């Protein structure tokens, strides 16, 4: 028996886009303080699951439900989910030319603070806060004056995602291949940032292909996805096993189902 209520419950979730089924009955429960890793081949539905939890309008939930802090969020808009504490770290963070990173971060942070009934921050107060958070991901202040993600290297974009996570203080963070495109040093910086931000009240879902991120952040559970379903769940050893065996066996597993 767990002592607290789950933050996130995905219950037998089926979803499709353009009438093409992508998720075929995913169930997943995350409690406060837990770190879950979802692994699997390209195209198995990992990123789709993360986008559906975040409310991407291109996907339709055809069956099942997503509960966040006990409430069904199937019909909530993406911004309502974000404001209430769901954070999605993108595999490919979007560039928004002409929109200053600082202003973007301030507007985002204030939308979350408003939901939490905290005072919204003006530019000066926000600069103070962001300065402190920049330290977590070892980012230079100059990034703030540039357009959102524009001209950022792959590593800089991922660090900017973690900076956003730090500012938004989510209850659950789903990090979609945050380790892709990072060199060893950048990976350590990002991993250390994630560890500092997470605490006993937050849940984290790491979507990844590789063990190397999990060397830095040890998950409580590892789930293997194939063909839109979670086909196996285990402890952190399962990730090591996958590293050795690869994903070929998952194809056979799906065929037998």
């Amino acid at each position, binding site marked *: 028996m767990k002592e607290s209520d789950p933050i996130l419950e995905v219950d037998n979730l089926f979803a499709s886009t353009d009438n093409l089924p992508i998720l075929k009955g995913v169930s997943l429960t995350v409690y406060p303080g837990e770190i879950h890793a979802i692994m699997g081949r390209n195209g198995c539905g990992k990123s789709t699951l993360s*986008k559906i939890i*975040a*409310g*991407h*309008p*291109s996907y339709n939930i055809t069956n099942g439900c997503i509960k966040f802090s006990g409430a069904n969020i199937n019909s909530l*808009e*993406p*911004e309502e*989910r*974000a*404001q209430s504490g769901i*954070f*999605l770290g*993108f595999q490919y*963070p*979007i560039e*928004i*030319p*002409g*929109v200053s990173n600082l202003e*973007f971060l301030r*507007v*985002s942070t204030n*939308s*979350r603070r408003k*939901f939490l009934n905290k005072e919204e921050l003006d530019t000066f107060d926000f600069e103070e806060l962001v300065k402190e958070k920049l330290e977590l991901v070892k980012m230079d202040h100059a990034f703030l004056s540039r*357009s959102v993600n524009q001209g950022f290297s792959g590593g800089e974009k991922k660090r900017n995602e973690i900076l*956003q996570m730090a500012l*938004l203080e989510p209850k659950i963070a789903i990090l979609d291949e945050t380790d892709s495109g990072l060199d060893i040093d950048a990976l350590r910086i990002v991993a250390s940032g994630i560890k500092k931000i997470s605490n006993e009240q937050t849940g984290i879902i790491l979507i990844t292909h590789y063990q190397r991120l999990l060397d830095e952040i040890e998950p409580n559970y590892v789930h293997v996805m194939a063909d839109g379903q979670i086909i196996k769940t285990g402890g952190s050893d399962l990730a090591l096993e996958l590293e050795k065996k690869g994903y070929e066996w998952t194809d056979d597993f799906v065929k037998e189902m």
Partner: protein
Amino acid sequence: MKIIENIKTNKLIDKQTEIQKICHQKLQSSPLPNLKSELWRLSNKSKISKFLDYSVDEKDPKFDVPYPKNSKSNIRLIIGEDCQIKLKEENYSIQQLNEDELDKYIKEQISCFDQNENWSDLLNLSLSCKKNILGLKINGSKIPPIEIFSHASNNSFNAKTLVIFLEKNCNIELLQVNFGKENSSLSQSTFIHLEENSSLNHGVVSYGENKSNLLNSLNVIQQKNSKYNLGSLHFKFNYARFEIQIKQSVGHAKTNIKSMQITKKDEQISTYTKIDFNGPNGFLDQINKSLADDKSHAIFEGSIIVPKIAQKTDASQLSRNLLLSKLAQIDTKPQLEIIADDVKCKHGATISQLNEEELFYMRTRGITLTEASKLQLSSYFQEIISFIPVSKDRWDLLDKILNEN
């Protein structure tokens, strides 16, 4: 169409000036442009009729400029309000052109006008009375930014004309603002002459009110080694047409244009540009953006003419368009007419909608769809607005565009 009837029956203006007479004569046999021609075929006929359906008003009521003055050093002039200017400072001078100088220059221009291609200027000059023609001769450097305002009064047709001579080595920033009042038509014609080594950063901002109309014509002649930058923005007109004609007389000149039109409701706003390279080593970098929402219609037609004499021309023309509604319409036609064989010319056009992935990204950060759309639009506008000189008004403008219907 009151104005056309008056042209036909010779009742346009009492006590016509010589220029008004010449233009009137040119229009009398065929007072309307050829609406089937390439230049006019997309114009909404009923909107043109409404544009021409007001009586000419020569007595403007006093105009209160809605912008606070940017800085004390800025020079602000309102066409039609007895602007008398004669500034002679240590580094520069700004003087009004006298009647003879103005007549001579305008007559030269009219002599090569084509009834269809220059219809907007012919109409303007046949209606613009002396008081509504402002001519300036500017020379020197470190000149304070100049703001020039034109406006139309309610329920009337107003014609305003601006002539500017930039003398050799002169360098200025000029913001021209055209206001359309409710139920009004404004005809604004501008003639700019850039002498050798002169440079002009020119902003043209035109915005209207309910059922206002605008016919805005801009003619620029560039001499050798001159540089002309134009940033323009047209929005909130029932019908507006912006015609830009730029001629690099002997080549060896630079032109940069960043223009934008925003249409909503059932508005129609169009931009026509003709860039004529009349000598070698000319340069052009042009981008026109349109944004069409609701049932509106935005039009861009641009032509770049590179005759044999214009070798080594380097010209680029890009039309980028955002279609925000299923019922909105965008027509765009960038085109090149090249005869010279040693040139670098390119053109292109794109029409797209708001980027859904960008919107989703912003929404996952708690930003509402409305705010995210505004942010995305402001980033779309930014490139143009930041190119419009006299900076204070830029931010007011962005706010105005994003928050007004």
